[in-house]
């Protein structure tokens, strides 16, 4: 096992880097898209609410692999060449944004209605009330579920292995094929995933307890 680590270290490390990079990009992207669709879902207008929930339901109920592969195969046919990393990250962003939309919506709903009324009664506009009163409180509630979404992102980024995205899973699989040392390789790859996900998941559990 030490032999694999010492001889394959550069590719493992670059795989880990790509996994982290992809997860961070997808987290930022899906936060923006997710918050946007969450706001659509709580709109006053029925048509806008429907648009929001159709988006969320569609992306929640289709496997991530199907979404990522579709981008990987279809975009080059009509638009431009796209790397596996880009296609995978876009797929991951869209898929996760549907879950984040639900999280943000639940967070906004968890803030008491009186808070908004109070803000409006004090002369704030709806936009100001959202920005200064509602969202800061909602954000506090949704930090643990968002952290869990990030853990899911890191795990789900392994789908990049299907589209040659050079992530940790892809590199690990290559090493396993080359060296035929499958168990030690998967063991190392597993530990590298756990280094990111496990502390985060314990910290989120700690935060959840503190907030509850």
């Amino acid at each position, binding site marked *: 096992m030490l032999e694999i680590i010492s001889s394959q270290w550069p590719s493992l490390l670059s795989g880990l880097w790509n996994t982290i990079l992809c997860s961070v990009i997808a987290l930022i992207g899906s936060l923006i898209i997710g918050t946007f669709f969450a706001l659509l879902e709580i709109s006053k207008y029925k048509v806008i609410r429907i648009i929001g929930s159709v988006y969320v*339901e*569609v992306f*929640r*109920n*289709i*496997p*991530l*692999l*199907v979404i990522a*592969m*579709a981008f990987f*195969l*279809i975009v080059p*046919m009509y638009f431009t060449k796209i790397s596996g990393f880009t296609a995978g990250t876009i797929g991951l962003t869209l898929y996760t944004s549907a879950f984040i939309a639900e999280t943000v919506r639940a967070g906004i709903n968890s803030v008491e209605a009186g808070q908004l009324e109070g803000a409006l009664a004090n002369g704030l506009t709806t936009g100001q009330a959202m920005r200064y009163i509602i969202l800061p409180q909602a954000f506090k509630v949704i930090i643990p579920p968002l952290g869990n979404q990030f*853990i899911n992102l*890191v*795990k*789900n*980024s*392994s*789908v990049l*292995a*299907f589209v040659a995205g050079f992530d940790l*899973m892809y590199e*690990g*699989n290559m090493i*396993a094929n080359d060296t035929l*040392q*499958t*168990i030690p390789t*998967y063991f190392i*790859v*597993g530990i590298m*995933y*756990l280094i990111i*996900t*496990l502390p985060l*998941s*314990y910290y989120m559990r700690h935060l959840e307890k503190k907030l509850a």
Partner: protein
Amino acid sequence: MQNFIDAYSWVNVRFLLQGLWITIEISVASIICSFIIGTLLGIIRYEKIHYVSAIVGFIIDLIRNLPLLLIIFFTYFGLPNIGIKPEIIPAAIMALTIFESAMVAEIVRSGILSIDYGQTEGALANGLTKWQALRLIVLPQAIKNMLPALVSQFISLVKDTSLATIIVLPELMYHAQIIYGQNTNYIIPMFVALAVMYFIVCYSLSLLARYLDHHMA
């Protein structure tokens, strides 16, 4: 448009439906296995048995924080390295069960924790044993709280079966790949079909979750 008409020939549609059937079979088998194992593990973790609960809990946390794909690789390509060589379908069910049991265990544990401890105290005061209290008083109430989370976990399981294409499990995704592999004009029609088929299965499950949530609470 012609591509769509050609792609959805009866032969292809039947081939996709065969894949969908395997997807459903694998999902149902894994759901049943992981529900049983996950519930047991969840109870063990909740019961705070010396050392056992801590070890089980740590293993659950490890598995929950690994990508499912890695576990699939492990069961199909890893196990033969130590002399166990599972067939494709058992390997897929094994990987899904390992991963989902850990997820279910956490749902079960937090479901049990959501029930007020007074319920257990009351049951014990009425002369029930600890196990009877759990089985007859706490679990039936906890199941109600757990159902929405369980169903959405099983929706992820259905979606996750698609990852098993990597070990050539002949499920829906793999059958679609075979079809568009023969004719690249079929790529878009196949992805549309995949999206629709997975959506129908998963969305019906989420409607079921909503129904249960509504009628049992």
